[in-house]
């Protein structure tokens, strides 16, 4: 119902290199998808295209089957969007802003707004002009969450936010997903902090999609395999196993293996490379997976193409 389908989206800023090149992935209804990428990878552009704030040069974004172009889904109240750069209107106080926003949104929850406001440590009589950057962000988030959109798009919502409030935001996000089945797409650099809340992820480097999918599946697919052994065993290993990233030091080789290309499991690896001293297979944290993807994209772009 509110699944996100990004289909071959490309965007080029005037005279600059392409910000997005043929990006396609999706998230099912109710997913919380983490959009990861270095600065300038194209996350903001992609989120704006998803929201309908920017029209892609080619391709399109569909949410729940409906094209999101020209702010259509923002106007119909399906999409809620939060970003760092948005300037709140020049109302005097936060309370006034809430009162003005309430009639605009069909599903505005005043109780939730009040509750969030308290949890963020803000006051209804806060003057918007005197808010700090973090408080400003919290106020924007509050307005987006209280509107209870079906799809929530968040662009670096944790910028300038203290740890306690980050917690509250994440809690509110998963609570919204739990209560209403909200689909969330969140771009953030705080990968470790949000990992547990995510169900899906998409990793962008330089405007291109590298990895996308459900976290559970990605955890199965990408693992770190560390082998200790002699030169010949290590060389054979490095040759045969499909890897995303490889590091060598002395008698140790550590790779981030792609289990989809060449399958691995512990027993099979032992049998195949029985000359090795030890073989360990470890799960990757999302942060490490991200780091590997980005590093491999920088050094060998073709190798890093998503299968």
């Amino acid at each position, binding site marked *: 119902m509110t699944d996100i389908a990004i289909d071959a989206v490309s965007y080029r800023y005037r005279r600059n290199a392409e910000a997005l090149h043929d990006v396609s992935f999706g998230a099912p209804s109710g997913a919380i998808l983490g959009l990861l990428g270095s600065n300038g990878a194209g996350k903001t552009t992609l989120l704006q295209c998803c929201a309908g*704030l920017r029209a892609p040069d080619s391709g399109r974004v569909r949410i729940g089957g409906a094209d999101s172009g020209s702010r259509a889904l923002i*106007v119909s*109240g399906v999409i809620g969007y939060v970003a760092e*750069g948005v300037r709140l209107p020049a109302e005097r106080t936060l309370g006034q802003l809430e009162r003005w926003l309430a009639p*605009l949104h069909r599903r505005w929850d005043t109780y939730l707004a009040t509750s969030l406001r308290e949890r963020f440590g803000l006051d209804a009589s806060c003057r918007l002009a005197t808010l700090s950057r973090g408080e400003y962000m919290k106020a924007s988030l509050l307005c987006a969450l209280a509107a209870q959109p079906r799809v929530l798009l968040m662009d670096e919502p944790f910028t300038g936010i203290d740890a306690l409030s980050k917690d509250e935001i994440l809690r509110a996000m998963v609570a919204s997903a739990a209560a209403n089945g909200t689909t969330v797409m969140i771009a953030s650099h705080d990968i470790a902090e949000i990992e547990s809340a995510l169900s899906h992820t998409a990793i962008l480097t330089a405007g291109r999609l590298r990895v996308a999918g459900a976290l559970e599946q990605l955890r199965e697919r990408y693992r770190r395999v560390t082998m200790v052994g002699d030169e010949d065993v290590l060389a054979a290993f490095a040759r045969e196993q499909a890897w995303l990233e490889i590091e060598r030091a002395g008698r140790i080789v550590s790779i981030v293996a792609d289990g989809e290309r060449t399958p691995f499991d512990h027993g099979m690896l032992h049998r195949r490379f029985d000359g090795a001293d030890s073989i360990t297979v470890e799960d990757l944290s999302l942060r490490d997976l991200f780091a590997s993807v980005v590093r491999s994209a920088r050094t060998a772009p073709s190798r890093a193409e998503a299968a």
Partner: protein
Amino acid sequence: MSWWSQVRHVFTRDLRRTWMALGIYALMLCVAVARAVEWPPMMRDATVAVGVLVVLCAAIVVAVAVLADHPMRADAFWAIQPLHASAVATSKLVYVLLLLLLCGLAMLVTLSSWNLQPLDLGRANIGVFPVFALLLLGVAMVAAVCMDVTRVGVVVVAAIGIAFLIDMRLRESTAGTYWALALLLLLGSTVLFVQRYRDRRSSRMARGIVLGTGMVAMVFPVFAARIGPGDANDGSVPRHTLDEVALSLPVMAMPTCENGRLIVPLGVVAPLGWRIGLMKPSLDVTLDDGATVSLSAPGWMQLAGSQGPMLPTVRDRANVKVIGGDGDHSAQQIQIAFVVPAADSARTCGRIARLAMRLWVTTTTGTEVLRVPLQGQARAVAPGFRARVTAATLDDATVAITARVSMLSNEFAGQRHDLAALDFALLNHERGEMVRLSSPRSDAESSVSELPGLRHMASTLDLEPYISRMARLSGLQSWRDSAVLIVTLPVERGRGWRQVEAVVSR
């Protein structure tokens, strides 16, 4: 929320946020109105250009309103709210409309002080609407394209400066009306403005078009028609044409040459109260042997004032004895001196058989506008005119009247009038006498524009009778109680070449 509710929602919020700025704008309008109606009397002496301030204030208010919900900025808050782009744009237009309505209200109050007829009132207001609307829409468009206040300010000031300069150049010429163009520009601006909100792409061409149109819209009102009362021709003044002026050459005997000049008498008969102008006289002389000689005369002669009793017509013509002239018409005889070149002198003089004179004739009639009694601070108002006698001295030695006159800048029959063209006369009902007054040019009239598109002139004039009239008046003191100051506006009736011929009898 329905589309209209959204418009109202954004509009009411804008009102709420900017009530102070709107208050200042309203206050400025009040000041402008006070100055235009010259009440309280002290207001008229203030030298501040309130009109410019009103326009600037409105422009600032509009710019701030548009910038608050900018159509193209990436950080616009309205864009991430469930608001239709067209609704937001429309609410800004409604805001502009509010400013226009406030100005219209001020205009209404001002114009009613000039006693305009309801029809003229409506016409005048309709005349102002596109003027100011274009100005404000232009500012809105510039604000929609420029991202911050300073840039908008720079562009607006530049445009107003350009408009001011063009206006100064245009003052000498008549301004025409370009209604169709104005309405087209208005419509186009509205569409472009709304489109900015709907299509938030900022391509260079789109921005250029909007910026250009905005600046044109801001400068265009300079070309718009000045407003004023309708033609005050109410039928009591007979519609005469140029043909009514009868020219004749009452030459019976041989015209004489003196010192290389041929003096030809010319008779002029015109309806009473007409001002006749004669220009570029040329004379074709046919000699008794059939040869023709062309002669010209230097200079331009205006008959009014210097000779002959050309006086303004008055309503109750029949009961008034007009000094000089008889009945309905006034007859004059003038002499025109034509230059005869020395070579032709012997040949020409004394051998003239026939004369043909060609002249360029312009005719101006006076339409009575106002009558002001002389007592105290008496005032009179007519559509587009206001006059008040501030001081009157009448005795055997002096006739001096000081009057404060103001008029809406207007166009009668294609001409632009100013205070200098007004004629003043004193009428004594009891005695049935009328005397013409003139005013020295020292007191220049000032043209003021308090409200956008509304231009009026005001001046204090010191009036004196023509000295030559003095000899014919008697008992001036008695005039004080029964005299009335009449203000007349001359209107050009026609102009053209006229030819008149005569045969010389020996």
